[in-house]
C-alpha cells in the first residue's frame, strides 16, 4: 500500500499522471539552463569577432550612461561599453570555473576513488588531509596565493582548483563507498578481476555520472569564488573585465548608475542559477536514491 501512497503523493505534487512520467526525463528548465550556458559560452568564445567596442576602450561612449541604442547595456564610469565588458568577463568566469573544477576533479576524484575503494590506512591519511584542507580558511589561502604568485588568471585557477580538491574528494569517496560495497563488485572480484580493472570498468562508470553532476554545481561555486576574489581586487588585474571587479566598481555609483553593478550581477546570477539547476537536475536523474540536496 505504501507504494500506492507514494505514487499518489508524487502525482498530486506534479498534477497528473502524465506529469509523473515526464519527471522521469530531464525537466524543461534543465534545457533552458543548458541553453543559457551554451549561449554564454558561445558569446565568450566568439567575442573577438563580434562587432563590439573593445572592453578596455575607455571613452567608447559617454560615461555612466544607461542602456541605449549604441550601447545595449550602457557604459561604465570610464565610458567603456558594458555589453562588451560583460561578455569578456564571461570568458574569465567560465574559464576559471571549468578549468579549476576540472583540475579539482582530476586530483580530488582520484583521491576519492582510491580512498573509497582501498580503504585502510590510505583512506585514513587521505581523508585526514582533506579534513585539514577543509578546516583551513579558504579565503586566507586564496589571498596568500595571490599575494605570492601575483594577480593572474593562472593563480586564481590554481587557488580555486586546490580548494575544490577536498570537497570533491569527499563526495567522490562517498559515492565510491556505496558502489564498492555492492554485489557486482564482489562478483567481479570472485572472478579474479584485478583491482585496477574493477575500478575502471565497474566503479568509475557508476561514480562518474554522479560526480559530473556534482561538478556542475561546483563550477557554479567556483565562478562565485572568482567573483568574490575579483570583487576584492584579487583576481585578474584591471583593466581586464571580470564580473566581480565590475560589481565592485559600480558600488560607489549605485545612486546615479546602478546598472554598472547590476548588469554583471545579473549575468553572474543567471549563469550560476543555470549551472545549479542543470547540476541538480542531473543529480536527481543519476542518484536515484538520493534525489535531494
Amino acid at each position: 500500500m505504501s507504494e500506492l501512497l507514494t505514487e499518489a503523493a508524487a502525482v498530486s505534487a506534479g498534477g497528473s499522471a502524465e506529469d509523473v512520467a515526464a519527471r522521469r526525463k530531464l525537466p524543461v528548465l534543465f534545457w533552458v539552463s543548458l541553453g543559457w550556458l551554451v549561449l554564454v559560452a558561445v558569446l565568450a568564445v566568439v567575442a573577438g569577432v563580434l562587432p563590439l567596442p573593445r572592453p578596455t576602450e575607455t571613452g567608447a561612449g559617454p560615461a555612466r550612461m544607461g542602456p541605449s541604442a549604441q550601447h545595449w547595456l550602457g557604459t561604465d564610469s570610464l565610458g567603456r561599453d558594458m555589453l562588451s565588458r560583460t561578455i569578456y568577463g564571461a570568458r574569465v568566469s567560465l574559464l576559471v570555473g571549468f578549468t579549476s573544477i576540472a583540475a579539482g576533479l582530476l586530483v580530488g576524484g582520484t583521491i576519492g576513488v582510491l580512498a573509497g575503494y582501498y580503504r585502510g590506512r590510505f583512506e585514513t591519511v587521505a581523508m585526514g588531509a582533506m579534513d585539514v584542507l577543509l578546516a583551513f580558511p579558504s579565503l586566507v589561502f586564496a589571498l596568500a596565493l595571490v599575494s605570492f604568485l601575483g594577480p593572474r588568471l593562472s593563480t586564481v585557477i590554481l587557488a580555486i582548483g586546490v580548494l575544490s580538491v577536498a570537497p570533491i574528494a569527499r563526495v567522490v569517496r562517498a559515492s565510491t563507498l556505496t558502489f564498492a560495497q555492492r554485489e557486482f563488485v564482489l562478483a567481479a572480484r570472485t572472478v579474479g578481476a584485478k583491482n585496477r580493472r574493477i575500478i575502471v570498468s565497474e566503479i568509475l562508470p557508476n561514480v562518474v555520472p554522479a560526480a559530473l553532476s556534482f561538478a556542475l554545481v561546483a563550477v557554479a561555486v567556483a565562478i562565485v569564488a572568482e567573483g568574490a576574489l575579483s570583487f576584492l581586487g584579487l583576481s585578474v588585474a584591471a583593466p581586464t573585465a571580470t564580473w566581480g571587479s565590475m560589481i565592485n566598481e559600480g558600488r560607489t555609483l549605485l545612486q546615479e548608475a546602478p546598472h554598472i553593478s547590476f548588469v554583471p550581477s545579473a549575468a553572474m546570477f543567471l549563469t550560476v542559477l543555470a549551472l545549479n539547476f542543470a547540476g541538480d537536475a542531473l543529480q536527481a536523474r543519476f542518484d536515484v536514491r538520493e534525489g535531494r540536496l
Partner: protein
Amino acid sequence: MTPLLEVVDLVTHFVTERGLARAVDGVSLTVERGRTLGIVGESGSGKTVLARSIMGLLPRAGVRRGGKVLFEGQDLLGLSDRDLRDIWGAEIAMVFQDPMTSLNPVVRIGRQITESLRHHLQLGKAAARARAIDLLASVGIPEPARRFDQYPHELSGGMRQRVTIAIALACGPKLLLADEPTTALDVTVQSQILDLLQAQQRERSMAMILVTHDLGVVAGRTDEIAVMYAGKVVERAPTHTLFTEMRMPYTESLLASIPRIEQPSHTRLRAITGRPPDLVHPPTGCRFAARCPYAQPRCVEEEPPLMPAPTPGHHYACWYPVGDPAVRAG
C-alpha cells in the same frame, strides 16, 4: 438498534502513473457495538487501505473516495480534518502493524500516551501520568513506572506493541481498528497480544476490527469475518459458519493453504497459484477467476454479486460456490 459502524459501498481509488488503482472497490460492512469483525485477505487485497479509509487517515491529494462510513449514524467521509480529530483517539482508535515505526523513536513512551490523554480528556500532567502508568500495567508491561520514562528502542517488539495498544485504548474508544497487529512480531508473542486485545475488548465492551492475512489469527477470536480479494468483499459470515460452510473458492483455498501440524512431514504446502489481479485494470467478471480451480466460462464474463446463503448473516460472491453440487458441473 443502529450498528456502531456501517460502511456503505466504500470506494478508495488512487491516482497513479498507470491509471486509477482501485484499492477498495465498493465494500459494505457493519459492526455492532462490542463485537469483533475480522477482515482477511492476502497482500494487495485492499484490507489495509480499507482500514485506513474507514478511519479517514488517507492523504487528500491523489485519492478518490466514495460511499459512506457511518459511525453512530454520522458520515465520517464528509467530515473535515478538524472534526475527525475529535473522533480519532477518543471514539475510534487504531493500532498499527509495526510498532517499531509507529512509535516516535525520539519521544518517551509515557509522553506518547499522555499526549492523547491530556488532549482529549483534559487531564493535568500528574493525573495523566498516573493514568498512563495504569494503562501500561493493564496491557501487561512490568515495571510500568520505569518504562514510562523510556524510549521505544529500549523495549522489545512485543512490549512496544503493548504500548501502542495502551495508546490506542487510552481514551476509551468505542471502536478499535487493529491493522495486522501481530504480523511484525515473533510467533510466541503473537497470541499474547491477541489475547490482550480480546481481554481489553471484553472489559471495555469495545467493538474491534481485526485486519490480517492470517486466518489463524481470526479463528476463535472474532464474531464475524469478511474475506477480501482485489478490493472487494467476496465472502462474509459469522466466524464459525465461515470455517465450516465456506462457499467462496478463495476462502477454501486460503483455508487449505494453512499448514497443519497433523499432516505428515514434508507434505507439500498448498499455495494458491497465480497472483492477485492488477488493481488498475481489474479483469471483467469475477476477479478471482484466473486463479480459481473451479472457474467456469460464466465466471470470466459476469462478476458475481454478494448473494445470501441459507445460513443467516452469510453472504458470498460466487456463481459456482463450494459445496453446491447442483451448480458444479464437474
